[in-house]
């Protein structure tokens, strides 16, 4: 092979070599840019493809899966990465109290996580700005229980998979009841009042409604409402067909009955913090009954040195079966601006599959929100599970209302009633009608 540079002077050869090198570098640069553009282009197209293509990092922002509420999510995430080896999860846990601050600015800036943990309020708020992807065509949508479906929908389209459907009910210390000669947990309001009177006569503490901040009086009222109010009251509020005044009067009147007869010390309850002090008091075996969510089952089971059970609040008339209610909590939505839309939808879909959803439900002591996923067995909660299986469970009435501060307005009324049970029920309910506007 002839050397093309043979016979040329050294400076000329060097110049030619430099020119060739520059040319090669130019070709390499162009090739590099084209490769980069191709890669970008392929990344951009990932949104329309299945998760099993190019390697991607899928970001998830959630207020569970870390801190004090693991909910078995790290294990579920690990399985997701096994099933989709090309997807690496970037899972960010942000405490619920900071979740809106964390996400809202990012959503507005277009750089929020691909998958977002939601709740009914956030679904409405975020979708009011069009931030969530329409998931109506996803396979799990047809499996969502009819009374749960509205919490993931806006204007008839599905924007989130609602996963958390957690019972709130009455914990009973069976040893205290037995000592007072009460063999079974009361099933109706008259039985409950009689049992509280028996406990009082025997010198035992009856009902603990630790109400500092007002949350507990709201849950107590919702539990009574599940037994007394028509199930469609909440759904009709923003439509203008329901009001607080008069409909909720029987609920407040039952509470007043306990407060005025000395079976419940409202002023004392208003000073007790529910999640630490109140629960600790019950776990120490000091009280016969208290109100808490299913999330407390493990804590009570591991701490209490007595027999206990978790039951629907016996708020109905004589001869009825007790009904209970659930708090509709967290779920999963997809950021519409995600560049990995398909992978994000795959993640939500993965969460709906029985093997994964069941683990979450068991860890959280939740009922299922899907027809094809059974609810987990819950030790000590047979009565609540029976109520759910017997269709005696409905979602919290206030969660149907779109006004964001509805709960804190309710807390004020509950605390006010506990502080002064002589107030007219109608005045308190009119106050709620004024404070909670119909919202669309």
């Amino acid at each position, binding site marked *: 092979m002839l050397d093309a540079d043979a016979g040329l002077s050294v400076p000329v050869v060097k110049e030619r070599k430099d020119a060739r090198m520059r040319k090669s570098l130019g070709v390499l640069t162009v090739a590099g840019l084209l490769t980069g553009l191709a890669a970008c282009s392929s990344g951009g197209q990932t949104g329309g493809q299945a998760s099993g293509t190019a390697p991607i990092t899928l970001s998830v922002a959630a207020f569970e899966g870390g801190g004090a509420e693991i909910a078995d999510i790290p294990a579920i995430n690990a399985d997701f990465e096994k099933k989709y080896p090309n997807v690496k999860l970037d899972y960010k846990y942000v405490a619920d109290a900071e979740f809106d601050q964390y996400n809202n600015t990012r959503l507005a800036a277009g750089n929020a996580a691909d998958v977002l943990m939601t709740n009914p309020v956030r679904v409405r708020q975020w979708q009011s*700005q069009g931030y969530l992807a329409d998931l109506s065509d996803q396979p799990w949508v047809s499996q969502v229980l009819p009374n749960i479906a509205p919490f993931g929908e806006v204007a008839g389209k599905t924007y989130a998979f609602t996963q958390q459907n957690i019972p709130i009910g009455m914990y009973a210390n069976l040893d205290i009841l037995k000592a007072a000669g009460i063999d079974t947990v009361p099933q109706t309001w008259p039985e409950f009042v009689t049992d509280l009177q028996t406990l009082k006569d025997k010198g035992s503490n009856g009902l603990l409604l630790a109400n*500092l*901040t*007002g949350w507990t009086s709201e849950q107590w009222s919702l539990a009574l409402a599940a037994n007394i109010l028509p199930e469609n009251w909440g759904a009709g509020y923003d439509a203008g067909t329901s009001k607080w005044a008069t409909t909720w009067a029987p609920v407040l009147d039952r509470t007043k009955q306990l407060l005025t007869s000395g079976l419940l010390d409202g002023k004392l*309850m208003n000073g*007790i913090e529910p999640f630490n002090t109140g629960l600790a008091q019950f776990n120490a075996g*000091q009280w016969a009954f208290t109100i808490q969510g299913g999330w407390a089952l493990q804590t009570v089971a591991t701490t209490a040195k007595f027999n206990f059970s978790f039951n629907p609040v016996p708020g109905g008339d004589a001869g009825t079966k007790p009904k209970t209610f659930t708090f509709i909590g967290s779920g999963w939505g997809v950021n519409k601006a995600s560049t990995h839309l398909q992978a994000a939808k795959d993640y939500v879909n993965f969460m709906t599959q029985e093997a994964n959803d069941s683990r979450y439900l068991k860890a959280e002591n939740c009922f299922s929100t899907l027809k094809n996923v059974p609810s987990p067995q819950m030790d000590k909660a047979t009565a609540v599970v029976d109520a759910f299986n017997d269709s005696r469970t409905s979602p919290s009435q206030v969660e149907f209302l779109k006004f964001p501060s509805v709960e804190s307005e309710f807390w*004020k009324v509950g605390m006010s009633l506990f*502080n002064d049970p002589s107030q007219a029920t109608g005045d308190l309910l009119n106050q709620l009608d004024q404070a909670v506007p119909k919202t669309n």
Partner: protein
Amino acid sequence: MIRRRSALLLILPAGLIFFGFVIYPLLRGLQLSLTDASGMGGGKFVGLDNYLAILKDRTAMTALRNTAVYTVVVVVVQNGLALLVAFWLYKLKRVRNIVRAGLLLPAMMAFVAVGYLWSFIYSPLGGPLDTVMDALGLHSLEKVWLGDPNMALMAIAAVYIWMYTGYSATIFLANYLAISPSLMEAAELDGASGWRRFRSIDWPLLAPSLTINITLSVIGSLRVFDLPFIMTSGGPINATQTLSLVIYSRSFTDFRFAYGTALAVVLLLLTAIVGVTQATLLRRREVDL
């Protein structure tokens, strides 16, 4: 001219940072308060609607009243107690340094930790305060401290006073120690002691520290947030609702970000007016004395 240019160059970095992190956000906040933005982008101009809505917001009005009451109580009691402690420490030279370090400890604790600690202390079931009252036979003083609407705000004010009395006392004490001992000796030789000496000598000479302490406690009280947020969430029945709490709840719970910003502007104006007025009056008093 060169010196002036140098001076401008020297203040430029700080000026830019101040503009970027204080003035610009302030102007953007003012602009935001005139819209209906929900905090997630967007928002159309609504003029002064948010400010007019404040006047009709019963919770905001209650919060304004609570904030004013809280500020007056904290400023008066905290500074009164701090002055007493400083006076006592000034006289007790031997224990002064040990006690002074201890006085600052509560102010060094995080509000969140203090809030939880005092929630436990105030608890009507097993809380140390009521337990002590019970043990001493003072049953009439056993209260539901945080659950009683007539008591809750003062219970929270007491915690804030507990945290910052030592801090204020340390400032008063520093002022005391700066007073020439010969002046005090001369006053005593002239027969001025006790209340007479305090009124005629100590009080006028403590004017600089009084200005600082009152300014700090007024600003700290007007923007009170952490303690009621942790201890009562503004309850019972709005009894501990403060302006900062309402700003938070309207912005981040109700998603009425523009309205929350309008409330924040009101709080800013209130703090500025009260702060500047009292600082001016106290400075004028210092000059007069």
